[in-house]
C-alpha cells in the first residue's frame, strides 16, 4: 500500500494520488475525477467545493464523523440522489473523460455500481437477485446467465455457501451473506467503479473481515470507493483515504500518510479520536 523511502510532499492533492511505485504503468488519468462539487438539499448546502481524484483499480476510503457529507458525496457519483426531491448537485464528475452529471443516468449506474449500508436483496431467489441487473441490461444470452451468476458469486466469496440453493429466497441468508449477495449482484453487471456506503456497519466482525478480504480481490478489475465509519477498516483495505468534515474535503492522500502524518490539524484530531 505504501511506497518505500521518502515521498516528495505533494504540491496539489492531485499529485499525491499519482502512483509513484517503480514499476508503475503510466497513468492516463484517474478513473473518476470530481471537480468543485457542491450539493444542496433544498436550501441546505451539504457539500462544499469537493474536488478529488479516484485512481483506477485502487481502493479509496472516505472517512469522517457522522453527517459530514461523505455518504451524500458517494451518492452523487452514481446520481442516486437524483431520486430525492429538492436535491441538487453542481460541479463536474468525470468518468473516463465524460461528465456524468449530464447524460444517460441508467448507463452511468451500470458502470458505477453501489452497495448499500444495509443489505437490500430483492424478494426473489438468490439466482434471480444476481441475474436481475444482467437481464435488464441485456448483458448475456439466456444460456450464459448461469455462468455470470457463478462468476459473480465467486468474486463475492459466496459461491461455495449458496451453490446448492440458488433457488432459495435471498432472505434465507444471514446478514453477512446477504451483503455479499448484494456485492455479487452489483458485480454481475461488470461495473468499472463500485461504490460502497458503509457496507459492513450492520455486520459482525467475522462477516466484516470476509467482505474486506474480497474487496481486496475485486479491486484488480474495479475501482473501489468505500465510505466507512471505521478508521481501522480504512487502514486495513484502502490505498487512499479522504477525510470529510462538515461537507468539506479536508485532506486526501495515501492511507499511510493520512493516518501517520496527516497534513491538517482537523485530520489529526479525528484520527486520534479527539472528536467524532
Amino acid at each position, binding site marked *: 500500500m505504501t511506497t518505500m523511502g521518502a515521498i516528495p510532499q505533494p504540491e496539489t492533492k492531485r499529485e499525491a494520488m499519482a502512483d509513484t511505485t517503480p514499476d508503475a504503468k503510466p497513468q492516463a488519468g484517474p478513473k473518476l475525477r470530481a471537480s468543485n462539487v457542491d450539493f444542496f438539499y433544498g436550501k441546505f448546502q451539504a457539500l462544499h467545493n469537493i474536488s478529488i481524484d479516484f485512481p483506477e483499480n485502487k481502493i479509496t476510503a472516505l472517512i469522517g464523523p457522522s453527517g459530514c457529507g461523505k455518504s451524500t458525496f458517494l451518492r452523487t457519483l452514481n446520481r442516486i440522489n437524483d431520486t430525492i426531491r429538492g436535491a441538487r448537485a453542481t460541479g463536474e464528475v468525470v468518468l473516463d473523460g465524460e461528465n456524468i452529471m449530464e447524460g*444517460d443516468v*441508467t*448507463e452511468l449506474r451500470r458502470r458505477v455500481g453501489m452497495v448499500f449500508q444495509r443489505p437490500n436483496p430483492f424478494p426473489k431467489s438468490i439466482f434471480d437477485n444476481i441475474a436481475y441487473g444482467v437481464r*435488464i441490461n*441485456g448483458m448475456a444470452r439466456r444460456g450464459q446467465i448461469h455462468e455470470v451468476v457463478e462468476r459473480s458469486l465467486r468474486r463475492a466469496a459466496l459461491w461455495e455457501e449458496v451453490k446448492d440453493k440458488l433457488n432459495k429466497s435471498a432472505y434465507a441468508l444471514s446478514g453477512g451473506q446477504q451483503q455479499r449477495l448484494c456485492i455479487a449482484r452489483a458485480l454481475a453487471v461488470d461495473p468499472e467503479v463500485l461504490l460502497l456506503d458503509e457496507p459492513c456497519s450492520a455486520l459482525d466482525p467475522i462477516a466484516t473481515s470476509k467482505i474486506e478480504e474480497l474487496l481486496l480481490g475485486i479491486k484488480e478489475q474495479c475501482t473501489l470507493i468505500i465510505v466507512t465509519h471505521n478508521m481501522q477498516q480504512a487502514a486495513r483495505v484502502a490505498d487512499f483515504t479522504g477525510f470529510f468534515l462538515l461537507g468539506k474535503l479536508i485532506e486526501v492522500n495515501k492511507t499511510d500518510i493520512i493516518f501517520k502524518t496527516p497534513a491538517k490539524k482537523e485530520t489529526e484530531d479525528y484520527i486520534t479520536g479527539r472528536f467524532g
Partner: protein
Amino acid sequence: MTLRRLWRKAVNDVMLTMTGICAVLTASALFFILGYLIWNGSTSLDWNFFTKLPLSPGESGGGMANAIVGSAKIVFLGALIGVPVGFVAGVFLSEFSGKTLANTIRFTADLLNGVPSIVIGILAWALIVVPTRHFSAWAGGFALSLMVIPVTLRATEQFLGQVPLSLREGALALGASKWKSVATVVVPAARTGIMTGIILGVARISGETAPLLFTALNNQYWSKGFNEPTASLPVMIYNRAISAFDDFHRQAWAAGLVLLALVLVANIAARMVLAKGAAAHRG
C-alpha cells in the same frame, strides 16, 4: 444509445403515461358523477322539493319533504344508538381493557364492519320488525346504528391512542382517578379526531339504502313518531329511479344531488380538519 436502451426508455415513458392516465381517470370519476348530478338535478331543486310531499306522477309541485325529515329521523336514531356505543367501547379498548379482550372486540367490530349492509338489514328485521310486526324508523335506525359502531370505535381508539403518555400522567399525578383523567383530559385531547370520525360515520350511514328496504321501508306520506314506516332519501331515490315516469326520474336526480352534496361536504370538511390536526401534531 443502443436499440435495447431506446426500447427500455420507451417502455419507461409509456408506462409512466399509462399509469398516470389510470390515476387521472379514476380521480375524475368523482367529477363526472358530480357534474352529471348537477346537470340533471339542479333544475328540479326548488322550494317544493324541500317542503312538499310526493305527488302522483304527472302532478307538478311535489317534493320529498317527508324523505328528508324521515332520513333525519332514522339517521338521528342510528347515531343516537351507535355513536355512544362505539365511543364508549373505544374508550374501553384504549384505556381499560386487557390485550386479548381488546383484540377480540376489535376483531369482532371489523367483522361487523365487513358484513354487507343488506345482511345487517336482515338482523334488524329479525330483531325488531318481526316481534313488533310492523316496519318502523326504530328498525331502520337500529340497522344504521350497527353500521356506525365500528367506524366510531376505530376512530375513538385511534385518536385516544395518539394522546401522549405525558398528558395522562400529568392528570394522574395531580390525584385524578383513572376514569376522571380519561374523561377530563384524555378524551378532550382527542376530541377533534374522534368528532371527525363520527362525522364520517354518520355521513356514510345517511347514504345507505339496503338496510332500510325492509326495516323502515318507505312512506309516501308523513310518518308520525318513530313507529311507522318512514320515508328516507336513499330509498326514495331508488324508488323514483326505477319507476317509469320522467317526473319521478327528475326527482331522483334532485334527491341524489342533495344526498351526494351532503355526504361530500361532510367528508371534505372532516378530512380537512383531520389533515390540519395531523399537521399540527407533526409541526
